[in-house]
């Protein structure tokens, strides 16, 4: 046994990229599962005209809100069980024990979650904007607002997902924890699009969302890591 062997020093970036690449591989190996949130998003948005009526003016006035609420729910759906598989097979425990910064590992997990759940919604959103008769000038703002907003939702939602790690059937509880916290994202995201629809400036709302991304990036990983530690230690 070569106990004298030096333990290689691992940089933060290496920790991040290792977990990120591993998770992306897992995500792509079961890509059909990863498309569920996107399907849900498209389905919910296309149900609204059926429930409300096909009046184009009405649709374009409620469109931003409908798309945003549907995106929020789709993100929420994808958050359920974000850490569950890693918790079940012991990977999470190894991460906690590894001595590497857990918040960086958590951040990598969140980034993959965003790539597989948030990004498809962002890419699909212009099409749904057209569905709901949004003016074409509003579509870029819709994309940018969802791009920033889904990042915040991934980060904040992961805290809730980590907190409900050991809860069986934690879906409704997760919604109860995450939805109140995502009120500001919904308000500013939908308002940005609404502003363009009403031919006003949307830069302020987008800037606030950008600020939200920065704040969440700085604070949320710490919260996620703390919550994961609690979840892992309760398994005795």
């Amino acid at each position, binding site marked *: 046994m070569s106990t004298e062997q030096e333990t290689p020093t691992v940089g933060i970036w290496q920790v991040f990229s290792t977990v990120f690449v591993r998770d992306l591989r897992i995500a792509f190996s079961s890509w059909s599962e990863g498309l569920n949130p996107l399907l849900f998003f498209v389905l919910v948005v296309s149900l609204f005209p059926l429930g409300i009526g096909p009046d184009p003016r009405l649709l374009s006035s409620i469109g931003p809100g409908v798309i945003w609420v549907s995106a929020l729910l789709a993100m929420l759906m994808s958050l359920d069980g974000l850490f569950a598989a890693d918790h079940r097979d012991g990977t999470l425990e190894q991460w906690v024990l590894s001595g590497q910064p857990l918040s960086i590992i958590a951040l990598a997990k969140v980034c993959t979650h965003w790539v597989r759940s948030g990004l498809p919604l962002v890419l699909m959103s212009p099409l749904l904007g057209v569905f709901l008769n949004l003016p074409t000038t509003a579509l870029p703002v819709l994309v940018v607002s969802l791009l920033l907003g889904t990042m915040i939702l991934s980060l904040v939602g992961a805290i809730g997902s980590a*907190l409900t790690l050991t*809860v069986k059937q934690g879906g409704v509880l997760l919604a109860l*924890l995450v939805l*109140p*916290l995502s009120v*500001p994202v919904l308000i500013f995201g939908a308002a940005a699009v609404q502003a363009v629809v009403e031919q006003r400036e949307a830069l302020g709302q987008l800037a606030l969302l950008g600020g939200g991304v920065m704040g969440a990036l700085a604070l949320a990983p710490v919260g996620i890591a*703390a919550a994961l530690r609690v979840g892992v230690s309760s398994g005795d």
Partner: protein
Amino acid sequence: MFKWIHKFGSPPFVYGFSKALSPWIGLASLGLFAWGLYLGLVKAPPDYEQGEVYRIMYVHVPAAWMSMFVYVVMAISSAVFIIWRMKLADAVAEASAFIGASFTFLALVTGSIWGRPTWGTWWEWDARLTSELVLLFLYLGYIALRSAIEHPQSGARAAAILAIVGVVNIPIIHFSVEWWNSLHQPASITRADGPTMHISMIIPLFVMLGAFQLYYAHHLLVKLRVVMLERDRRTKWVAERVQNGKL
């Protein structure tokens, strides 16, 4: 200092302290309630715009203040619990959650009743009412999370993290809701809180706030005893108290 915390934070001491103090605080609270309600409902003059209706303020405003105060208490004691692993702090947070949710609910209901004659509707998406509603959800999430996790200690720590995350978010939520409201409903509500309140209307408000604070303190002390008995039911000091008939 830690020795000091250890002694005065120990369950037997706090139990005795709470038992000796809580009846007096309860009595003081009752006295303030009687005085405040008399001042508010009888002595204070009717509002020149709202008439007698505004008197619901003497329940509504203290309840709304308390709903936020209790959440801050909960978050601070959660932080103390997370940082120093002080179990008493967690017991304070647990004992506060339900009463805080009740204050929030009371503020919402009285706000709704007040809204009916003054705004002409039971529910207005007024910024403050909406923030209170979100606050109620935060409280319910805290209670639900704590009870959903089987292992009591990890339930306590998970709930504490949630309380801290919530208190970071509350200002952001409040600000965003206010901004959202001013955007969607420009000055459609004439919120008739008048230019400035007369002193004879303000004094009862503060008396009522004192009554609410003392009521919370009383409730907290009693609930703390329940929480401590439940947690320490297998320890010696509880057994001794049961034997001596001094529960």
